[in-house]
């Protein structure tokens, strides 16, 4: 029992390290799309691992922790997909080393340039 709890704590520690890596990726990546890649998804795995670790430590809490894990798995990719779509529609620039942009060739492309003069 004690061993299981220590394994769970170590899993939580691994999850927190993934969260940290996600945040570092958020800082280091050059453009918005890569930030979405590195930021939101590494941290998604980090959160899932933290929940799983606490589930191993406290087995009586499995119901709510399982619901949390499933909801994180379902909602997070949808939100990052919608965000990336909005970014491409707004005309957020890709970084200079980008090889190819097939989406731009297909989509009717409306750059929203006056998005930034929202203030008065």
């Amino acid at each position, binding site marked *: 029992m004690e061993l299981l*709890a*220590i394994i*769970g*704590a*170590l899993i*939580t*520690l691994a*999850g*927190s*390290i993934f*969260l*940290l890596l*996600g*945040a*570092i990726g*958020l*800082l280091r990546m050059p453009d*918005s799309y890569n*930030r*979405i890649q590195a*930021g*939101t998804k590494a*941290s*998604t795995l*980090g*959160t899932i691992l*933290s*929940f799983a670790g*606490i589930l191993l*430590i*406290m087995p*009586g*809490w499995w119901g*709510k*922790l399982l*619901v*949390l894990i499933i*909801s*994180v798995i379902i*909602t*997070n990719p*949808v*939100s*990052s997909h*919608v*965000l990336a*779509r*909005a*970014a491409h*529609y*707004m005309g*957020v620039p890709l970084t200079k080393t980008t090889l190819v942009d097939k989406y731009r060739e297909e989509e009717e492309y409306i750059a*929203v340039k006056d*998005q930034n003069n929202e203030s008065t």
Partner: protein
Amino acid sequence: MVETILTIAAGIMLLSLILSIIRFIKGPCYTDRVISFDVMTIASLAIIATVAYLTQRIIYLDIAMVYGILSFLGVLVVARYLERGL
């Protein structure tokens, strides 16, 4: 033993929260800020779960549920606003 490891884990989660706040301040576009908002909420979810263990209350996990659902909606609303679909 377990509590020590979890304390260190909570400290690392706080560090990632601080790093995403730095991105919020720097972020050149709106989307960068929204991404850092998303990462902040995810890190807060992990912090809430850790706090729930450290204080031994299962009821704190309900707040994590509400948190997850409403941060998802917040990101969706901002994204749909930015792409003129609201």
